[in-house]
């Protein structure tokens, strides 16, 4: 259709130039971002601990962009500053194990001295973590463990038992230790949640024989779905004494549902979530008390442990001195325990911002 001529060729050259320009703009945009200092990240000079150089610690949450892991990052930065280590804190934008594998391998490539991960899948991350360990990197897991033989240490935020007992005790106090209960969980296959439910049931059986879990429903970490399943269930089972929401998303969903049904005070609500998320429901009285470990402290501890691994002074047993946290317990030679979960209520909730 077109005739080749001089003008045509010039136009073509012009367009090619424009193309290169735009492509450069895209690449350059990335470059510009790279130079912007990411909080606590030591870009550019990373890699190679070297004699006398600061230890580099690469730490990965299950995903970035949610308050819980932002809070952990805050604690991690605090510890990094205190210890004078280079901290890289990054993870995928969705909780995908495969994306984590990719990052672990790249952490290994850039020769981090220590890698610490919160695993989306214990087994999927294992080969990459083993490989990192073989390359001489100190390996650890925090928040959610990887397969035991693929890392050196696990920083445990709270034992399953402690979580299960704390939640049941809070609920028993509010309901007189009897009744049937709904549990709103993440997904039916989430390992942490299932272990907590087991411990909750065991504790009920041992201490409060009149309490029982009538139903376990998944909220799939979707707030609206959490509200909907709780609403539907409470409409169908109006005698339910209380609802446990055992993820940071399930609990506000359950509280919102109870509030929307106008059944505050009749249906007790407790579970695990962050103070910022729960503040409105504590203020309105829908939720009296709820629990969670402190994610700021968890991130803080994880960096301390990783640094101690690199320095080679992590004890096998007894206790471990972790900065402002003082002495924390070594549950086993490869497991550090943050401590019992914190309980939040209207009295102390304003002391926390995460």
């Amino acid at each position, binding site marked *: 259709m077109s005739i080749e001529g001089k003008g045509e060729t010039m136009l073509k050259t012009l367009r090619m130039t424009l193309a290169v320009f735009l492509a450069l703009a895209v690449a350059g945009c990335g470059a510009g971002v790279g130079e912007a200092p990411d909080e606590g990240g030591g870009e550019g000079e990373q890699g190679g601990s070297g004699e006398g150089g600061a230890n580099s610690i690469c730490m990965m949450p299950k995903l*970035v962009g949610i308050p819980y892991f932002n809070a952990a990052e805050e604690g991690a930065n605090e510890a990094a500053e205190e210890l004078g280590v280079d901290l890289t804190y990054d993870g995928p934008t969705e909780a995908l194990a495969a994306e984590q594998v990719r990052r672990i391998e790249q952490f290994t490539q850039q020769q981090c001295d220590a890698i610490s991960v919160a695993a989306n899948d214990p087994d999927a991350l294992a080969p990459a973590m083993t490989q990192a360990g073989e390359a001489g990197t100190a390996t650890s897991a925090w928040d959610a463990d990887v397969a035991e033989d693929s890392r050196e240490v696990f920083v445990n935020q709270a034992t399953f038992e402690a979580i299960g007992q704390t939640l049941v005790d809070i609920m028993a106090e509010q309901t007189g230790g009897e009744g049937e209960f709904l549990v709103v969980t993440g997904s039916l296959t989430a390992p942490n949640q299932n272990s907590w439910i087991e411990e909750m049931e065991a504790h009920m059986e041992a201490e409060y024989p009149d309490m029982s879990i009538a139903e376990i429903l998944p909220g799939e*970490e979707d707030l609206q779905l959490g*509200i909907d*399943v709780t609403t539907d269930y409470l409409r169908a089972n109006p005698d339910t004494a209380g609802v446990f929401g055992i993820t940071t998303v399930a609990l506000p969903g359950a509280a919102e549902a109870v509030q929307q049904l106008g059944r505050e005070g009749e249906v007790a609500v407790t579970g695990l979530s962050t103070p910022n998320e729960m503040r409105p429901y504590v203020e309105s009285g829908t939720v009296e008390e709820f629990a969670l470990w402190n994610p700021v402290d968890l991130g803080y501890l994880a960096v301390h442990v990783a640094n101690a691994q690199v320095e080679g002074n992590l004890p096998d047993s007894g206790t471990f001195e972790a900065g402002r946290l003082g002495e924390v317990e070594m549950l086993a030679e490869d497991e550090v325990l943050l401590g019992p979960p914190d309980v939040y209520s209207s009295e102390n909730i304003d002391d926390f911002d995460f």
Partner: protein
Amino acid sequence: MSGASTTTTATEHSDGPLKRFLTRPEAPALIFLAALVVVLSVVADGFLGASNFEGILSQVVVIGIIALAVNQVVLSGEIDISTGSMLGLCAMASGTVAVAGGGLLFTLLAGVAVGALAGAVNGFLVTVARIPAIIVTLGMLYALRGVLLLVTGGTWVTGVPAEARVLGIGSVFGVSLPIIVLFALFIVMELVNRHSDWGRNVLAVGGNRRAAMLAGLPSRRVRFWAFVLVGAAVGIASVIYIGRAGSVQTNAGTGLELQVIAAVVIGGTSIAGGRGSTLAALTGAVLIGVILNGMVLLGIPGVWQDAVLGALILLAVSTDVLRRKLLGDKA
């Protein structure tokens, strides 16, 4: 409902009312919906009852409102699959304004403004830069979620005050307000499609773009405003979303785009453009709500939800093709 928003041929005038109903785009979906309601009433405990129906309706309001607008885009022969991320962004904007004490009006304005802006970007890229809508809105699905994460840094909006939640949890004369909003918008869209130039042009452009252009219709402008309308509708929906949920998370709206498209095509609007109706989008949204509710009541695990949704989309578009062939043979 008369056939003002359909483009089926004029032969229907001579047919009886039943036949006229059957040739309407949403007829199969309505029949299917009625059958499903009957079956579920018998099979599923707790399905029949005013509170469950109200529950189903209020759960599909967000999808329904967006579907009414995406319906226009599909009618004009385009597609928009960016609405999930768009809802997240709008909800974050309106939620932030609400928490800052903006009151309902400014909350609504914030949501609609952000949505309309995002919609305008879609519309510009499709109609002016001439990038295919599927690529534009696929790219925007990711880019908008990225913007959301960048702007918020991953912080959630919590504690939306009661005055800004009215559209989500309020009620008038015992009828829940979000349901009233949905039906009000439905009527507005129906009027727009029947009585405005733009509404008629949407169908003409979608039916045969070249013919429409030859007839002097402003094809680009018509499609551009359809994309803007989607943005504005997502903005309104976002206020209902924050009203119902009371807080906004960075993953808000994930996967919503699929349910919206499903609602539109299951309802009977042809994905090829030019054929469909406002009622189709609404019927489709309600049908999805009934199916999801039925799955819960029948104890079908939520993990199968996507499979059911996908199969339904395929079923809907296949029957559309078969019907087109049958009607084509008759004519």
